[in-house]
């Protein structure tokens, strides 16, 4: 996920997380962040959460609840309206993507092939190192090439058993049945990136078959697909990668054979997908699944994953004449002629290319043309797919069992062992995060996907460390005069105000304390940490979940924050300090001590003093409250209240004030002191 996505995440957070956890109150109460309808906005983003990452500009109308069944019915109505209006769907203005999931009267069918590079130390058939092949990463080209990789005469393939570990895990994560015997075939075609003239693959006897991936609404599927949709996997096969070609000026191509022979899995679906967004969600989900079992080296952005999509359209069977529809029900009409779009390298490209190809095919058919089975290409940012080669240019791959390679026999005990050591799959993990910790599904998904799964490891570390601190130093840690001022606690800050249960947008009114800790940790691991890298370098996060901000230090900050020993602003400053290295590891509390940054809240009397000063001369404003009280205004003038709180904050000592406390006090004081006084004045 790039930086833009992160910024978007943050915008979303500020808009959507009102009321999650007491410690962010000061942030949330800043009026400019307050959305008019936070709940609704939240919901909508959740439904199309992932498209947000890819297409920030998309701003679809809220879709409050997913349409459950009457999709066909709605389509019929749309078609009817279309006929009545004589409109042509393709003549319409360019739609944004969320509205462009269906074309009335047509049914889209998509099958996907995903190639993912397996996470192994060696190549598929040679002991050469599977080194990074990206020239930009400084890997020397053509360094890791064995005799077989270069197809030197007389060399032979040597299957590297260790490849089976990530391969089997990948297949298990995709719900496949591991085949006890699989075989390697040679697939022949000439290309400079393939020195032997054939690719060794498993097309006819793959090592895994019959899997299934469940996509939930939170995965970003098209709203038309409802809450969830299952995509059936036909097979998963191992195969060799080709050499990497880098185009140079003047018709020159550089070829890096470091990549030749690297192990890939090819994942082939059944044509089960009918909406472009769902196709993109599927690819994203597969990437997440592979990353979660450590089967894959890198995601799409780094070139570790590529997708080919097969696209066809046909007249929507539901829209045929009654007679034809009856016939169609008995025997469904065949799918339309499909075209294949090769080498899509981003989620966005998957969705955009499918939309473009679907529209091209429909326009062609409606103009009386015929779709030809052909291979097409797609460039990022374009609006049309382009023809690469047609049927006449199709290669007969002349598949042949590789005579040097025996069958791969995978025993049940290996499968059982790999399955038992695989860890929690993302969906189970997400269910935990959402159900147990109370995270929003959007945040849960972001946590799980960021940094190829390292971010969530970091989150767990922070949470563990935070719980540890809260357990081991109950109620203590800070200066006594602050933490144990009973008056401040019990009277000024009503207990209800500090508990999430009082917040209207809280997911549950029975949040446990551990849930509050988790929410706090998640918010900071996701959003505050994300802000750190907006401008400068990265977090340096490691796969086992550590980064430039040690998890124990973040936990220390959060511990103080949770106990209201420091303000949120101080907490953020501390985070920056740790990130920049200004605060050495393990010195958070000392820094607070040294800088005298502890939160020493005003007493109730002191608050009242500040409030009195702020209200002085604001009779006009107070009149609004009076109007509400007298029933002349419908809504409580919250804006006015916040205006006064703001004035208090500016007037008083900000380091010693909690906006929430100030608000509570002010509200009570308006009710009981200022309004009666105003009445008497007027």
């Amino acid at each position: 996920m790039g930086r833009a996505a992160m910024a978007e995440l943050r915008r979303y957070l500020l808009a959507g997380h009102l009321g999650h956890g007491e410690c962010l109150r000061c942030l949330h109460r800043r009026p400019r962040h307050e959305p008019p309808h936070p709940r609704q906005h939240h919901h909508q983003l959740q439904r199309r959460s992932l498209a947000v990452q890819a297409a920030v500009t998309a701003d679809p109308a809220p879709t409050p609840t997913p349409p459950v069944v009457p999709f066909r019915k709605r389509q019929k109505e749309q078609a009817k309206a279309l006929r009545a209006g004589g409109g042509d769907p393709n003549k319409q203005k360019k739609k944004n993507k969320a509205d462009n999931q269906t074309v009335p009267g047509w049914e889209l069918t998509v099958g996907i092939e995903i190639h993912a590079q397996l996470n192994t130390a060696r190549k598929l058939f040679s002991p050469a190192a599977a080194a990074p092949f990206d020239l930009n990463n400084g890997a020397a080209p053509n360094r890791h090439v064995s005799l077989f990789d270069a197809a030197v005469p007389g060399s032979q393939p040597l299957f590297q058993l260790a490849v089976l570990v990530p391969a089997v895990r990948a297949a298990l994560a995709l719900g496949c049945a591991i085949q006890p015997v699989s075989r390697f075939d040679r697939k022949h075609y000439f290309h400079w990136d393939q020195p032997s003239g054939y690719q060794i693959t498993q097309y006819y006897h793959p090592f895994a078959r019959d899997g299934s991936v469940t996509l939930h609404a939170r995965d970003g599927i098209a709203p038309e697909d409802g809450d969830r949709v299952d995509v059936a996997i036909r097979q998963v096969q191992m195969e060799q990668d080709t050499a990497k070609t880098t185009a140079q000026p003047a018709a020159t191509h550089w070829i890096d054979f470091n990549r030749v022979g690297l192990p890939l899995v090819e994942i082939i679906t059944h044509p089960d997908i009918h909406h472009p967004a769902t196709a993109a969600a599927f690819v994203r989900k597969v990437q997440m699944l592979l990353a979660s079992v450590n089967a894959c080296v890198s995601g799409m952005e780094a070139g570790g994953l590529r997708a080919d999509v097969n696209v066809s359209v046909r007249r929507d069977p539901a829209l045929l004449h009654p007679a034809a529809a009856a016939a169609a029900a008995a025997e469904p009409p065949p799918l339309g002629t499909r075209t294949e779009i090769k080498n899509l390298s981003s989620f966005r490209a998957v969705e955009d290319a499918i939309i473009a190809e679907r529209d091209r095919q429909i326009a062609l058919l409606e103009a009386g043309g015929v779709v030809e089975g052909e291979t097409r290409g797609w460039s990022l940012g374009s609006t049309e797919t382009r023809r690469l080669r047609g049927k006449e240019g199709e290669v007969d791959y002349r598949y042949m069992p590789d005579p040097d390679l025996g069958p791969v026999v995978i025993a049940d005990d290996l499968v059982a062992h790999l399955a038992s050591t695989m860890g929690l799959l993302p969906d189970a993990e997400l269910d935990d995060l959402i159900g147990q910790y109370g995270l929003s599904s959007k945040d849960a998904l972001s946590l799980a996907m960021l940094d190829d799964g390292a971010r969530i490891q970091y989150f767990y570390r922070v949470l563990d460390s935070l719980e540890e601190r809260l357990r081991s130093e109950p109620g203590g840690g800070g200066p006594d005069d602050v933490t144990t001022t009973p008056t401040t606690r019990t009277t000024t800050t009503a207990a209800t105000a500090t508990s999430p249960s009082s917040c209207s947008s809280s997911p549950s009114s029975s949040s446990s304390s551990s849930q509050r800790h988790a929410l706090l940790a998640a918010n900071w691991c996701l959003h505050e940490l994300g802000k750190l890298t907006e401008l400068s370098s990265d977090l340096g996060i490691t796969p086992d979940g550590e980064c430039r901000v040690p998890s124990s230090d973040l936990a220390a900050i959060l511990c103080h924050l949770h106990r209201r020993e420091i303000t949120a602003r101080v907490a953020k400053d501390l985070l920056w300090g740790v990130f920049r290295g200004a605060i050495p590891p393990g010195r958070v509390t000392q820094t607070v001590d040294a800088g005298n940054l502890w939160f020493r809240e005003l007493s109730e009397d002191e608050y009242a003093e500040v409030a009195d000063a702020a209200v002085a001369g604001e009779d006009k404003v107070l009149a609004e409250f009076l109007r509400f009280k007298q029933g002349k205004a419908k809504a409580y003038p919250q804006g006015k209240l916040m205006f006064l709180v703001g004035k208090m904050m500016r007037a008083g000592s900000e380091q010693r004030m909690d906006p929430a406390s100030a608000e509570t006090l002010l509200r009570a004081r308006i009710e009981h002191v200022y309004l009666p006084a105003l009445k008497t004045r007027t």
Partner: protein
Amino acid sequence: MPVRGRPRGLRLRHASLPTLPQRRLLNQFISKGAALCPNEPAAPSLAPPAPVRFTLAIKDNIATGPASSQSPQPTTCASPFLANYHSPFEATIVAQLRARGARIVGKTNLDEFGMGSHSTNSAFGAVAQDTLASELDPLSAGGSSGGSAVAVAAGEADVALGTDTGGSVRLPAAYCGVVGFKPSYGMLSRFGVVPYANSLDTVGLLAKGVGRIRELVGGDGKETGLWAEHDSRDPTSLSDAARRRCAKGREGYGTAAPRRRSTEPGGLLKGLKFGLPLEYNIEELEPRIRDAWAKAATTLQDDFGARIVPVSLPSTRHALAAYYVIAPAEASSNLAKYDGIRYGVRDTESASDAAGGVLYAASRGKGFGDEVKRRILLGSYTLSSEAMDNYFIKAQRVRRLVRRDFNRVFALDNPLHEPETFDLTELDESIAMEDKWGPEEVDFLLCPTAPTLAPRLEDVMSQTPVDAYMNDVFTVPASLAGLPAISIPMPVAPETTGGAGAEGPATAGLQLIGQYWDDARLLAVAETVAATLNNTHPAR
């Protein structure tokens, strides 16, 4: 360094160095090792060589690398594509033999990539046999390891390496009157052997007598036998565990000498059962060979106490067709790497291989010889989606039947397969049943190596390719089944129909085929049989 001959349209990079003159222009070598100069210090990088115990000629589709000899020799496969190709590494079998005291004398000529039966399809010219008439009217040396057979026959090498895919070691051995041995598939490492058809290719050995081959393969008490050496770089090389398992219940491996029932000379043969496959008595079989075959069988039975049993191998008649589907299919795949970009000569007139460009096609069209192109086309067709089911798949089924035929007639089980039960109704009626379980099972099969004697090169050149394919009819079945087989010289009666001065060949090849991994006993028995054939035919 090339001895003579030059690939069509190519100049070889290395100038000829002075070499020992060959007696006749047999063209058996593509390159020869430099004569060792005693004063010349050995290259410092080379390990002290093992004391030279024998000279070795190597078929030029087996890689020799910088370590193989002091003057590096190319590995050409007799193809223009590889005319200047120096392999960066050495084949395992070459290293194994050097460790056993081999000195490499040269790389021998062959049919391009091993595709042929007469060693005429070579970019370096055809090989001819060393016979009295060879200068005027030379005889075919057989193929594709013709150069190796001629080098052994001419005494230029004690042992020669060949490759046997469908008979390429046994056929030239039979034509040239030497011994040619094809081991069980998976026994000798193919690493460094440029593949023709991987599932059939084996490294074979040629020598004048069986003894030296037996010592190399089975061990001679000082050196380990080649049979015991697994090569981790060849995925089809049997693992150590599989070798031990296969050798269990086999005679001749390790210290256990083959069992003898008699101490007399030839006593090893007493009680052995030799099967004569009825299907091998084909119409095209040269009568003199048929007579010699029958005579040899009679001798073994009458003079040495062996038993001769007629057996049936009903799938034999389909074996040749299956071979010429499978081998070209694999060849078309293996040769896909020769595109003129990395090896061979790039066709400069077609510079582009972009869509519509024909760079590879043009380079391959110019770079391969006719027979290779023929087999690539054949293989490409049989693998095409429309023909695959009718050709390649059916051929694989035939292959399975051929193997089943052999398993049925041999007394020993094939250690690579579960024992099968057989339907007796499929058997030829002429086969006598030993008991209610079926016909007698045998130890070895005894049959001619080729249906004809060595033909004149002139006749070969006018043959159609299919005529040439016919020569492989007796050798292909053992290749399809992966079984060990050996061709030993068998004297034939002088030509009676020819006029004065007819100098036809005096020997044919007698082939012995054994059950899988019965190589050691096969070699021991073949050595004895070869001796008996000589004793009983003093004319030789």
